[in-house]
């Protein structure tokens, strides 16, 4: 087992005007290369904060984070991030949006275009390259967000509740597509969600967070055979177990 993603004693305190908030305490976790890890928990348990720290967009108050052997001190080219509210530039076409991360990295225009087209095709956006984000449905927009993140071939793909705002049907479709891409690209995925079902459908491993301060309450390996369905008995058993851990009576949604 390689130590591809490593969090050692990671803590985060947000200083406040009256009192500071401890968002995370003592996060220790080692992730393998190629693993699909879900960070599961209720809102406010620090799972997104941890993801932002892995992306280098937040700094840890204590402890260390390393991705692919590199300590994270700021945004790194080893990671790419997909946001829940997709973060597409409304004034850029789909094509330009997908090219942005490469442009920021100084990839020449012709190469950019070719790579973008490739990922536009992979994410099922062929024919939409000239559209603006507001002309697309929520699911399509998130496909653009995913395509953009993949263009720089990140070693770790960080996803912050990417399907949280989508309807159930679109969500299911995008989950399937994401798994397909993940199997093809063999990237490591860290996926924040507050849906137990989503975590069980996607993850090799689920980190269950508990709140105040955010900690990892459980680290669960999911051995269910793929493709998965929420109908199986094993799935239901695991879902029940997770519900107990998350501390919700039903689906936490």
């Amino acid at each position, binding site marked *: 087992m390689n130590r591809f993603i490593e969090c050692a004693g990671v803590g985060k305190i947000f200083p406040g005007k009256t009192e500071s908030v401890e968002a995370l305490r003592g996060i220790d976790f080692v992730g393998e290369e190629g693993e699909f890890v879900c960070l599961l928990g209720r809102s406010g348990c620090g799972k997104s904060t941890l993801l932002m720290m892995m992306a280098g967009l937040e700094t840890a108050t204590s402890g260390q984070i390393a991705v692919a052997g590199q300590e994270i001190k700021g945004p790194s080219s080893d*990671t790419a991030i997909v946001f829940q509210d*997709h*973060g597409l*530039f409304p004034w*850029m076409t789909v094509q330009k949006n997908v090219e942005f991360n490469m*442009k*920021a990295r100084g990839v020449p225009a012709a190469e950019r275009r070719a790579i973008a087209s490739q990922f536009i095709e992979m994410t099922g956006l062929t024919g939409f390259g000239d559209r603006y984000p507001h002309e697309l449905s929520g699911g399509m927009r998130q496909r653009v967000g995913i395509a953009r993140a993949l263009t720089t071939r990140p070693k770790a793909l960080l996803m912050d509740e990417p399907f949280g705002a989508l309807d159930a049907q679109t969500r299911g479709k995008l989950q399937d597509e994401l798994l397909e891409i993940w199997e093809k690209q063999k990237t490591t995925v860290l996926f924040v969600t507050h849906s137990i079902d989503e975590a069980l459908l996607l993850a090799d491993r689920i980190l269950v967070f508990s709140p105040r301060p955010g900690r990892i309450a459980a680290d669960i390996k999911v051995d269910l055979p793929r493709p998965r369905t929420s109908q199986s008995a094993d799935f239901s058993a695991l879902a029940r177990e997770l519900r107990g851990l998350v501390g919700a009576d039903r689906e936490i949604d």
Partner: protein
Amino acid sequence: MIQWRRALGLLPLALLFVAWEVAVELKVYPQVLLPAPAKVAAVFVNDWDTLLDNAAASLARVVTGISFSFIVAVPLGILIGRYRILDMLTDWSIQIFRSVPPISLIPMAILLLGIGDKPAVSLIFLSGLWPLLINTIFGVRGIERTLMKVARAARAGEFLVMRDIILPAALPSIFTGLRLAVGAGWLTVVTAEMIAVKSGLGYMILNGQLTFRSDLIIAGIIVIGAIGLLADQLVRAVRARVCRWQEGLTASNE
């Protein structure tokens, strides 16, 4: 139906015209002071060159002045909106100076710059500067936070962030500023020409008062209003073109 609603905007103007005609018929004022519409219409034929020359002079001043405002305010506004320290440095000054009506600066402008285009254009520049500056800053501030995170995560350089993210994000707001600036500049030019310059529509109107040419005054007012309307429509049209990506994003396109 839509055509109809468009035409609705003409109704107040038509009513005003009728009221004018009635006032003339009833001889509320002597003809010398309040000329008949027909007499004013004649100005557009007989004094066409005068109108054209003066309108051109006024327009040239506004275009020059507002161009300077734009060149100064947009880059400055982007920098102030982007860097907190510049905001702290300039905020009070902006709030103070924008509250000063440009017209109140006319005496100083004449003392320092004399009579002519220099004081007029300077005042128009100032009239346009504040709305453009404030709206540019506002536009930069309004950028969605996620977009800046995307840029940071991609390690985009400062120049790319300015050109590809901050400028386009602020553009709709910059255009709002430009509309206000053009309006303010147009107000200022007419006033400035009444005092500081010997040409332009403002000068022509004031001259009309001195020579009892009330027909010329009213014709001048009509031209001023018409150009104001056209200038605003022009800025809106350019905005709609440049900010095409915004279509359907806002509840109404104003």
